[in-house]
């Protein structure tokens, strides 16, 4: 009995014949890394090139081994897997690189004293030249830009949320998939695709016609951002209102509650967590928009707390102008340090908003339903 079984166990089973052993990918990976390192040692070593060469060697090695042992179909499958995994790794490269660049360049700017509490008012190229020559601290900060961003975004939110939410209510509760509802849905989708600079131009053109040529204030920028924000709010609120169970509405109607009270007291409270997180995501999206603010609010260097009068700074436009037109053209380093510091602050803001959106969705989620 045992004598008949042992030979089968020592050889490979007929079922797994013609397959690569399980350790194959690891073995090929190790070989690829070693050969890659050897090739790079000949050409001059750098980690990026090593990764690239090793990845290519790994793909070639695994696919050709598979073609020799398993046949062309399995080899094609391995090739596709390599390409798919490779494309994911390639997509990660810019993400890691962007975050690394912003961190490395942004932290020196951020820890500069007064960076968050002073504006650029009175900071001229002479100060920057002095900072570079004598090695002193870099003057100036982003307080005015931070204030402008918060004000403009807040005003945009105040405009967009009622309009967006009411539109979503119309689409879900009153529209009945009629012609108007279909048109609104279609054009909301189209509006999501409006280039941000065109939204800025629209707000600028609108105020040029209505108020007077050359009107550039924070409020114009807020209108421009609303054009970008409304469709996002409509889409997310609509999705959330749609998943409110119909039984809740019917129960309210059965108790004799009017439709508008049903919507206000039953439907919206049930969906509020999803709506709030959608609104937060919409804010995160528009807070980083540069082009519309550039053409509508100009760029100021001093603190302006009046949204309805005068040019206003914002974080994205601050970054843009500091990079493109350094305060001191001969010594652009302090300007770029400020720009990267502002970029770091902006990214942190966006990440916090994204996180808050997730937390809202989780904490205030209704007990029933999804």
């Amino acid at each position, binding site marked *: 009995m045992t004598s008949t079984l042992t030979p089968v166990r020592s050889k490979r089973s007929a079922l797994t014949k013609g397959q690569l052993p399980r350790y194959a990918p690891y073995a090929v990976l190790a070989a690829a890394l070693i050969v890659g390192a050897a090739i790079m040692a000949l050409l001059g070593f750098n980690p990026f090139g090593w990764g690239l060469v090793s990845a290519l060697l790994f793909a070639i090695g695994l696919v050709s081994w598979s073609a020799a042992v398993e046949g062309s179909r399995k080899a*094609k*499958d391995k090739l*596709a*897997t390599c*390409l*798919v995994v490779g*494309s*994911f790794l390639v*997509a990660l490269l*810019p*993400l890691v*690189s*962007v975050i690394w*660049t*912003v961190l490395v*360049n942004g932290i020196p700017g951020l820890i500069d004293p007064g960076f968050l509490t002073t504006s650029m008012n009175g900071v001229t190229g002479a100060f920057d030249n002095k900072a570079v020559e004598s090695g002193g601290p870099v003057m100036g900060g982003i307080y005015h830009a931070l204030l402008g961003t918060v004000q403009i975004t807040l005003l945009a939110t105040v405009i967009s949320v009622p309009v967006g939410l*009411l*539109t979503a*209510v*119309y*689409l879900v*509760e009153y*529209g009945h998939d009629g012609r*108007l*509802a279909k048109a*609104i849905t279609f*054009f909301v*989708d*189209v*509006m999501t*695709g*409006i*280039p941000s*600079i*065109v939204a800025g*131009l*629209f707000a600028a*053109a609108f105020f040029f016609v209505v108020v007077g040529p050359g009107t550039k204030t924070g409020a114009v920028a807020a209108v421009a951002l609303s*054009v970008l924000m409304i469709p996002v709010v*409509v889409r997310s609120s609509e999705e959330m209102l749609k998943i409110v169970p119909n039984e809740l509405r019917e129960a309210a109607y059965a108790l004799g509650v*009017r439709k*508008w*009270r049903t919507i*206000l007291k039953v439907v919206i409270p049930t969906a509020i967590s999803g709506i709030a997180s959608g609104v937060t995501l919409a804010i995160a999206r528009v807070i980083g*928009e*540069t*082009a519309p603010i*550039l*053409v509508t609010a100009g*760029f100021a260097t001093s603190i302006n707390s009046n949204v309805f009068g005068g040019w206003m700074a914002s974080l994205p436009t601050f*970054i843009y102008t500091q*990079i*493109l037109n350094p305060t001191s053209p001969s010594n652009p380093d302090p300007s*770029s340090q400020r*720009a*990267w510091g502002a*970029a770091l602050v*902006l*990214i942190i803001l*966006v990440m916090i908003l994204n996180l808050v959106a997730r937390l809202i969705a989780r904490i205030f989620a209704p007990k029933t339903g999804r």
Partner: protein
Amino acid sequence: MTATPLTSTQGAGRAGDKVFSGAALAAGCLILAVLFGVALFLVIQAIPALTAPAGKIQGGQGFFAYIWPIVLGTLIAAVIALVIATPIAIGVALFISHFAPRGLASGLGYVVDLLAAIPSVVYGAWGAAFLAKEIAPAYGWLASNMGWLPIFAGPASTTGKTILTAGIVLAVMVLPIITSLSREIFLQTPKLHEEAALALGATRWEMIKMAVLPFARPGIISAVMLGLGRALGETMAVALVLSSGALTASLIQSGNQTIAAEIALNFPEASGLKVSTLIAAGLVLFIITLAVNMIARWVITQHKEFSGAN
């Protein structure tokens, strides 16, 4: 007796109903009005540029001679972005939907969404400060080894601030859009089709080729179209990265310009006829992106019952 108290006590409620439904309807109509207003006000402000004598427009040869090169530049940058981003985005979407371990998939999806969360001006700064410098030697190599191709004609830019760099940055920015839409559609593939293919002995790639990709094709097309819309309208990446100039065929020299970047660079200091010229350029961009987006949405609605996207 029975009917009157009911109707009289609910008078206020009925008014509330009317007000509320009216407000909802008004909000919906406001959105249509805004989109109409975008077109209307752009046209009003653009008319002076469109009707002005040719000599007064920047360049001195009329509006169409002014807009033509930057329309082409916009298309070139967008096409570069899509050529790079589409295969990678589909690969990433397939990885998340069909290759990655089930527990990791949603986390990986979030990582790709992070790419979309980074503001465009940060991408622009990254492209100008990091990518352009790193990639400039590669352009030198391309110019000396593949210079016989018109698109790689030398001399290569030494700063790396070319339309190809701008296109690469744009590719990074449209990647998450195409990825998230394609992923949604890949996940909608009927499970029975996939299992049938696997049960007949197909490898995973054959299953994807036979069951997933044919099902998802319209969705992929519209995702790419939406990515195109984004790439056409993206401003900051190009404005910060590209050192602009006249229209050239070579992708590795400085030169070319896109509509959005042209507006962003010139609008803050513009006045008079220059403002309406730039607004007219914005109108052209609006029409192009509107057409692209409408086609994309139309493709999606045509296949709604299958794909369920959006």
